[in-house]
């Protein structure tokens, strides 16, 4: 009766513990990496009803972001242009006025029914992000949206997670620039990162920049 269990069983508890430890570690590591916006959101590039190319309009033609997103410096919400804005250039008889790709835009202008653009950059409803204040105080579009002017199809470039927001709110000097340059997505400080930080510190001081880090800054 005494040899019911072989001697190797003595190691079993330890083996079980190690197994559990490794499994937990892998699962946790997996969640930490894959279940965050950095993984789940970045790269999201849905197909839009009209294959609008930012690379062409913004990049090649150099149209300012604010020609279409005209309320970005006034409102919390940066507006998607109305079909009427598109028709300023794409009316029949003007540029590509009869392109079949633009049919949804023309239809929208005629009927008033909106073009169902797919939302890419979403922050949760309980986070009240405000575009106007960032743009007015020298935070460029590129900081959150990436190089839109090089994207044929817009994709989600940055995580837009709370930790990612706070990175910037804790060190605003890394991104601040002259508000006149915010829509110039190619601009980088000519002096390199060190000069950017030096100039950023000056802006933080001169403009009294105090990005909120409390809950009330974004959650209401």
């Amino acid at each position: 009766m005494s040899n019911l269990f072989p001697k190797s069983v003595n190691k079993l508890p330890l083996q079980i513990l190690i197994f559990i430890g490794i499994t937990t570690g892998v699962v946790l590591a997996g969640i930490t990496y894959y279940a965050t916006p950095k993984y789940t959101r970045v790269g999201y590039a849905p197909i839009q009803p009209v294959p609008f190319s930012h690379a062409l309009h913004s990049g090649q033609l150099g149209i300012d972001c604010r020609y279409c997103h005209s309320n970005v410096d006034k409102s919390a919400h940066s507006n998607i242009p109305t079909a009427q804005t598109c028709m300023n250039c794409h009316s029949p008889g003007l540029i590509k006025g009869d392109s079949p790709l633009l049919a949804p835009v023309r239809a929208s202008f005629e009927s008033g029914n909106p073009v169902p653009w797919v939302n890419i950059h979403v922050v949760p409803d309980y986070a009240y992000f405000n575009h106007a204040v960032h743009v007015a105080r020298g935070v460029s579009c590129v900081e959150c949206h990436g190089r839109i002017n090089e994207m044929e199809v817009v994709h989600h470039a940055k995580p837009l997670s709370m930790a990612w927001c706070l990175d910037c709110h804790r060190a605003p000097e890394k991104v601040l620039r002259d508000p006149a340059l915010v829509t110039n997505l190619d601009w980088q400080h000519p002096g390199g990162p060190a000069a950017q930080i030096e100039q950023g510190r000056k802006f933080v001081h001169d403009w009294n920049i105090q990005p909120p880090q409390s809950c009330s800054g974004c959650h209401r």
Partner: protein
Amino acid sequence: MKRTFDHSAPEQTNTDGALTGPRYWRSLDELAETPGFQEQMAREFPEGADNLNGVDRRRFFKLMAASFALGGAGLASGCRRPEEHILAFGRSVEHSIPGLPLYYASAFPLRRNAVPILAETHQGRPTKIEGNPSFAPYGGATNALVQASVLDLYDPDRATTHTIRGTAANAARIQDLLAEIGTQARADGGNGLVFLAESSGSPTRERLVARLRREFPQALWAEYDAVRDEPPAAAARAAFGRDVKPVYRFAKAKRVVALDADFFGAESGSIGYIRDFAKARRAHTVDAEINRLYSVESTFTLTGSMADHRLRLASSHLLAFAAALFGAVTGSADYAALSTGLQFKDQEKWLAECAKDLLAHRGQALVVAGSHLPAEVHAIVYALNAALDAIGNTVDFVAAPAPAEAGIAEVVARLNAGNVRTLVILGGNPVYNAPADLQFAAALRRAQQVVRLGYYVDETSAAFPAGAHVAAAHYLESWGDARTTDGTIVAIQPMILPLFGGISEIELLARILGEGKPDGYSLVFQTITGLNALGGTEGEKGFRQFLHDGFVAGSAYQVVNPAINAGGLRELLAAARPPVPVTREALEVRFTLDAKMDDGRFANNGWLQECPDPMTKIAWDNAILVSPALGRELGIEPGGSAIQVARKNSAHFVRGMDRAFVGELTVNGRVLRGPLHIQPGLANYTVAVALGYGRGVTGRVGTGVGFDAYQVRLSDNLGYATGATLTLVPGSFHLLANTQQHWSMEGRDIVREANVDEFRQNPGFVAGMGMEAHSPAIFGDFTPEEFAKLPREERARITSERAQFTPRGGSLKETPDFSGPNAFLDGVHQWAMSIDLNTCIGCNACVIACQAENNIPIVGKDQVLRGREMHWIRLDRYYSDGKIEGGAFGGPGNSIIPEDPQVSLQPMTCQHCELAPCETVCPVNATVHDQEGLNTMAYNRCIGTRYCANNCPYKVRRFNFFDYNQRQLDKLYLGPLAPKGMPELVKMVKNPDVTVRMRGVMEKCTYCVQRIQAAKIAQKVKAGPSPDVVVPDGAFTVACAQACPAEAIVFGNIKDPTTRVSRLKALEQDYAVLGYLNIRPRTTYLGKLRNPNPEMPDYASLPLSRQEYLKKAYPAEMKGHHGQASPTHTGPGPRQGTTEDKAPNPAHRPQTSLGKFLFGGNR
């Protein structure tokens, strides 16, 4: 070894063993100190507030296990974020910027008393109403009704289709019907055509009615208002011989006598009156001259609660009182006969001294009579005002057009004669609220055809099912115009197209008249451009200016101030008779205009139903209010208990619920059944019933709430009736949702009060009260008394420094180090609030404004009964009678229900303590401090432990026990699979800038953080690349402060010592509630002042609450003041109406600590 501390027993103060007792009480029950109440006070929520309905813990877990199993099945499908679309307009819309609100000037119409407003719209849907600040008399203030009116727009129960004979009819059929009526009337001159409408100041309607009278001479135009908020026209015709109405100028009145007049609520133009009264009441300097209010009334109104001298008198005796006062003021005996039979305590002296005071302020005195009183009273009051030189000074008579000649009685007469072919009922609800003797419903059935314009399908629509119901448009979705009470023409603009195709009153009239352009815009355009008032800017431009401003400047009624016509007056009063006595066998019944329901039109408004009545604090019900004396005689006084000898309950409190006796009121031969509620301050044999409840046919919210007092109201006297009897219905009880039982603060020095004479000597009287007055300096280097002696600028500077440089918070979160490189962490602003208790009148405007701004749900009567109401700001109403004994037990002062209490009102909301007790106990850091001094709530972190609510000394945190936003109120207790979701219509009223909270989350006042952030962001956008980021003072304010008609709430930045709030907080009478806890609330209060006349027989040398405070805090000094004054102490005594209550003789000032702080330590 365990150490034990020997706490000495409370000092015995008198021989019968009385102990030190509470000083303020919010209900008779609290005063009674019943064991049940004691237990309740020890609890955070009343018993049952945190229990499921009849479900014990074991059963709960069983259910939960099952629901988790079911919930797991649904998880798999919902874990990815759904694809969302951004839907931009096809064509750009002028002025529309997604994400920014747009404001339009408009007006809230109510009878002849429109309120100019600014409506806030988000993407075309109105969400919030603010007052129009350009309209000077109201200065941007509103009231609870205006604030709540936006909810009616989105009421799912409103009439959503036109119907003819009960079947839906489209707009074209309705137009045909109306055109047909017009054609018929044109053919026969309007014979058999009758219109019944509510009164209105609309110039467009006036124009259309004039045309109607011209073109259809046989037609009858009648107006009926169920309640009266303007004096009867007959009084002005008799006294002045012409049609005028009074507009009071309270800002100029130093002495005011109110005869049953609730000019804070029930009178037309009350918003402006509150504002003006507060101006004359405010004491921001030591030598400020403060007005004095005498109130003679049968019920306890908010106006009465502000009175410095209040006399309880039956409404039917007010004619006698007015006559007697007229005699005392003028010395004439013209109306002496009318005052025979008038009898009250110290009558001669009361009248003589009051008259003397009025005469001493000739030209600055004002007498106001309640609109419900008969014309005779008003006529005497007009004469009295003329004798006091008030006319032209404190009251102006303006040439307002008279109301329509014909009333509802003429309509009923025509109906009964059987010669009404078509009855057009515009708004109103006569079947519900017509005088009972007219039997309107029966008469209505004699009409051949009825066309009803109504916002709801209500009693009137239901009474004639064969008629046509035309869905009315809300004022926020229709064009119109109106007049304010002073006659200024205001614009009504639509914010949104009619949600259900409703039409407005003027459109309906225009269709019948066959106007060329019967749309609202054209009608109003034609009226306004036709006015001479627009002067040089006529036409399109002038009209645009009108819409922009919201009113036509200078269009108010002309001030005429005619001379008194003595002959007419005599003629009117010749028929008047002296009053008959009001007794237990022949009670007087006063029909009161409800502060929330108005005449019943707001019955389906959940915000208003759930708002507690300002005085009784009862929500979701009305009650038959009886005086304590009558309660005793009825035998419904408190039952008491074996171990306490204090006062008895007015009702049985079972699990915190007010279980009221049910009584039957027989009046005018009709019987009314309702719950009885003892209301201190009522005239002994007057019972008060509020109108507007007991609706039979309306939406889901209002049907069957309360009882219908219109059933017993007859047309001969709509304000009150006499000869009633009241009997108990044995064994019948009714639960009243009484919020005054909850959230008790166990009466300490919560509201600090002084008389004006003491304030003049010692403006810092508040510093001498409370526990912190006797301790070493709690915060900083100064005790409160030392702090109060500093110059004001110094105090503002120190307050600013303290706000910036002392550590805050106390949460698990690390307190930031504000020095060195982290200095920038200290906010740009430091937010704080000041509430002036001296001008707060307790009107509830702030409660509803907060509810509208912050997406606060309603919870329903059942939940309010359990103490789960969600209001972020509440008004605490304390009674005090000065007779409380030093001890809680045994004294005679404790064993009777006070009949003449003073009222202290206090708005209570999150105080944003710098060392907030709620933060230290939150296990998940859901409530933490931000850099600018806000005690924030991160809803997403909250796990609902409710520790914070337990630890809050102000009881201002609110918990979402259920998903109030997702569930209908009758489906709260259903399981997880029960229908959920908010109707689309209800979603539209939500403020998009504020999170809608879910079940299991704690919430509370945030100082309107969304407004703060919006103002900061606007300032930063404006600043751009410059350091100018400080929001200027006055650039924005919080919702409660914006609505407040008394301007009692002021919000702002105390980092800057020159802002308005900083200057208010630097006043000597500024104090923190529960200041001794050293939690440093950011909201502080200004002490309340009373201004009694030392010559009056009911003069109290100290406010009654203060007497109670002293009796508790200084039992030794106060001993001997209950009965005979001892020779050595002539300190303040209780209000007994005897000579010992005179102000203490300066020569006999006691040299005690009491005397020291009563009369200033430096004297």
